[in-house]
C-alpha cells in the first residue's frame, strides 16, 4: 500500500466515523433535535435549501463579499509590501504595521467599520480586507526577503529597477509565500465574513450564510444551524482543495519551487 492511498484511507475513515457518530449518538441518546439533530437532518435541510434556492442565495451573498474583500486585500498587501521594499526604510514601517495589526482579530474592527460605513457591504468588505491584508503582507514580506539574491542580480543586470523589478522578479519569486499567505488569509476572511453576520445580522438586507445561521438559531432550527456549518466546511474544502491546490500544482509545484 503506498503512502497517498494510506493517507486518503485514514482521512475517509475519520470523516466516516465523525458522520456516523453524529448520526447515531443523537438517536441513541434520544437527544432533542433542538440540542443535537442527527447528521441526516442537517443534510436534509441542506438539500431542501439547495432545491428551493435559498442556499445559493446565501452562498452567493457571502462569497461575493468574500471575493471582493479578499481580492482587494491581496492587492493592498502586495502593493504595500512592494512599496515598502522600494522605499528606503519601508521595511521597518511594514514590520511595525504588521506587528501592530496582525494580532487584532478582524471581527474586532467591525464596530468601527459600522461606525464609519454603516451596516453596508463596505463595512463587511473593510473587515474582510483587514483579515486578509496582514497575513498576506507577512507572507509577501517573507517571500520578498527570502528571494535568492542571484535572481535580483539577474533582473538588475537586464536593467530592471523599482516596480518593474518587483513585478517581474520579486513577485513571481515570492509566489510560494504569496500562496501560503492566501491560504491563511482567505481562511481568516471566510471565518470573519461568517462571524460578522452571526454577531450583527445581515449586511445591507442580503443575508449570507452567517445570517441564515443566526435566523436558524433564533427559530430553534438546529438542523438549519448545522446545515449552515456544513456549508461553511464544504466551501472551505472546495477553496482549499479545489482552487488553492490547483493553483499551486499548476504554478509553484510545476516549476519545482515547492515540492
Amino acid at each position, binding site marked *: 500500500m503506498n503512502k497517498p492511498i494510506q493517507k486518503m484511507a485514514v482521512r475517509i475513515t475519520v470523516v466516516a466515523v465523525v458522520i456516523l457518530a453524529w448520526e447515531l449518538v443523537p438517536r441513541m441518546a434520544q437527544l432533542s433535535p433542538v440540542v443535537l439533530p442527527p447528521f441526516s437532518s442537517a443534510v436534509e435541510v441542506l438539500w431542501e435549501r439547495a432545491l428551493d434556492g435559498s442556499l445559493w442565495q446565501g452562498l452567493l451573498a457571502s462569497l461575493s463579499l468574500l471575493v471582493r474583500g479578499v481580492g482587494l486585500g491581496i492587492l493592498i498587501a502586495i502593493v504595500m509590501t512592494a512599496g515598502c521594499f522600494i522605499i528606503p526604510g519601508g521595511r521597518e514601517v511594514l514590520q511595525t504595521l504588521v506587528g501592530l495589526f496582525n494580532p487584532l482579530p478582524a471581527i474586532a474592527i467591525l464596530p468601527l467599520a459600522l461606525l464609519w460605513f454603516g451596516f453596508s457591504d463596505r463595512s463587511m468588505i473593510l473587515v474582510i480586507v483587514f483579515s486578509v491584508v496582514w497575513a498576506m503582507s507577512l507572507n509577501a514580506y517573507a517571500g520578498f526577503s527570502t528571494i*535568492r539574491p*542571484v*535572481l535580483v*542580480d*539577474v*533582473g*538588475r*543586470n*537586464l*536593467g*530592471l529597477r523599482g516596480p*518593474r523589478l518587483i513585478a*517581474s*522578479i520579486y513577485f*513571481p*519569486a515570492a*509566489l510560494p509565500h504569496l500562496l501560503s499567505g492566501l491560504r491563511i488569509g482567505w481562511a481568516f476572511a471566510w471565518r470573519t465574513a461568517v462571524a460578522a453576520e452571526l454577531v450583527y445580522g445581515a449586511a445591507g438586507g442580503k443575508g449570507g450564510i452567517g445570517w441564515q445561521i443566526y435566523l436558524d438559531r433564533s427559530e430553534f432550527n438546529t438542523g438549519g444551524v448545522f446545515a449552515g456549518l456544513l456549508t461553511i466546511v464544504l466551501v472551505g474544502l472546495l477553496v482549499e482543495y479545489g482552487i488553492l491546490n490547483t493553483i499551486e500544482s499548476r*504554478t*509553484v509545484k*510545476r*516549476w*519545482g*519551487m515547492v515540492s
Partner: protein
Amino acid sequence: MSPRHERLLDAPPAAVATGSGQAALAVRNASIAYGPKSPVIVDNVSFDVNQGEAFILIGRSGCGKSTLLRSLAGFQELRSGEILLDGKKTTAPGPDRMMVFQNFDQLLPWRTALQNVEFAVKKSGSKGAASPRQRALDALEMVHLSAAADKFPSQLSGGMQQRVAIARALAVRPRIVLMDEPFGALDAMTRASLQAELLRLQKEMNMTLVFVTHSIEEAVYLGGRIGLMTPRGTFEGIYTNAFQGQLDSPECAEFAGELRTKLEMSAA
C-alpha cells in the same frame, strides 16, 4: 559565421563603432571596499579588455576577483577609480554587460528555458531584426539545448542550466560577457565540454569576455590574457596566453606550472 550568429551579433563590431586602439573595457585605478571604513578588497587596479578578447581573472578565494567582476557588471560601487565601456563611464548594471553566475539557480524557476532567454531579450530592450522568441531559439540552438526549450529549470541538470544562462547572456547581444566561475560547481566531464563550447562560441562570435576562475587549467584553456590577482586585491601580473584552446601539450603544462608558482608566491 553562420547566419544565426550574424543574427545574434548584428550590432556593429566594436572596432568600427569606437575607433581603433580603444579598449572595449577599461578599468582605471579601481579600488573597492564594502563600506567607507572597511578595508579595500580590490586595491587600485587598472587594465584593459580588448574587443574579441577572453580576459581571465584568476586568484585564490578572497582575492577580490569576483568583487571586481561585480563592479564591472555595475552591482558593486567603486570606492575610487572608474570603469569605461567603449570609453564611456559606467556605474549602474545594464544589459550591455551580461553576467553569467556560478549558481545554477540563476534561471527564473517560473519560466522555461526558452522563456528565460526570451524574457532577457525583451526586458533588455535589445533591438534586432528577428523576434525575441526567434533570437531565444537561436541562442538555445547555439548551446545545443533546442530540445530542452520547453523544460523548466528544475527539470534541467546543472550543466544544462548553465548553458541556458550562457544562451541568455548571448541572446541579449551584450557588449561584454562577464562570467563568474560558471563551471565551478559542475562535474569534470560536463565542465570540460562546456569549456570547449564556450571557447568555440567566443571565437565564432568574436565575443569580448571577462571570466573569473580559480582553476589554472581553465584559465589557460580559455584565456587570451590572464590577470593574476594577489590576496591583497592587486594584480601580480597580466600574462598573454599562447596556449588558448590547447590541452595537455608539454609547453602548455609548463606555462600553467609557471602561473601556479607565481600564484603561490604572491600569496606568501
